[in-house]
């Protein structure tokens, strides 16, 4: 048994570990590991859950709330994606709310690509049909949508920066498609 100590045990390999790509117009990088929560709740539980998370859960479509590295994204009338970039324990946080809700930890189901640059919109539009102009999709806007054949969740974190959340098994496809589109975006 003593031989096992210090031996290489199973290590967790994040999807897209060390991934970098894109072009001068739109650079791609893997987002840092984060904890994520799929949260479902009825309207009467929203205020208590907001208090427990320290964010006011958005109730209008395509809006999000952010603060201290934590984001709450409106996905549907009773559905949110909560992301914490500091790795906080979100399940415990919402459990303290004391109201009826459904919370599923999806930290390792999702991964994210950060698309940054003046060609970021064009790169994402290479596979996504949404209008990403600033007037329609302002900073803080978010939406579940499609990128090619994969489902993604888009969050605009700055005028030239998007966070593209996708399922980890789709990560090679999503990053590959974005890489191709980012190269085209430079032309």
């Amino acid at each position: 048994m003593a031989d096992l100590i210090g031996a290489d045990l199973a290590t967790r390999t994040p999807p897209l570990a060390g991934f970098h790509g894109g072009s001068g117009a739109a650079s791609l990088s893997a987002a840092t590991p984060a904890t994520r929560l799929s949260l479902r709740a009825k309207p009467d539980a929203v205020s208590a859950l907001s208090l427990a998370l320290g964010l006011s859960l958005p109730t209008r479509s395509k809006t999000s709330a952010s603060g201290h590295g934590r984001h709450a994204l409106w996905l549907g009338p009773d559905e949110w994606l909560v992301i914490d970039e500091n790795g906080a324990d979100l399940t415990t946080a919402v459990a303290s709310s004391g109201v009826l809700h459904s919370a599923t930890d999806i930290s390792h189901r999702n991964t994210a690509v950060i698309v940054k640059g003046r060609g970021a919109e064009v790169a994402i539009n290479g596979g996504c049909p949404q209008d990403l102009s600033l007037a329609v999709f302002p900073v803080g806007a978010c939406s579940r949508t499609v990128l090619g054949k994969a489902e993604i969740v888009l969050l605009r974190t700055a005028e030239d920066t998007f966070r593209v959340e996708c399922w980890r098994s789709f990560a090679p496809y999503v990053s590959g498609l974005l890489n191709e589109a980012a190269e085209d975006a430079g032309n």
Partner: protein
Amino acid sequence: MLLIYCPYCEEERSELEFRQAGDAHIARPTNMTEMTDEEFEAFFFLRDNVKGLTYERWRHLNGCGRFFNAARDTVSDKFVTTYKAGLPKPDISTLRPATEAIVETYEATESDAK
């Protein structure tokens, strides 16, 4: 590419985010154990497949995920209106313009088929 108005997102989105989910306004019988096989077949399998205006369920699958209902023309593929699930059929006559442009389908312009 068709743009479909989602009544929950309150926005027009690309058809790529949506899935059709069969006919709308089909009430599930409350006396299913007493039904004959023919009655059950009529409820469960038989659909009208109308040519023209039809009421369908659609789902904003890669968006808000909600089911909603749509009034759609099966000839022109035009969505006349969409409305939230659970609402009654809307009065289409108030939504359609009085003089509607003729859709240039093969049947309308080339063939004798009615």
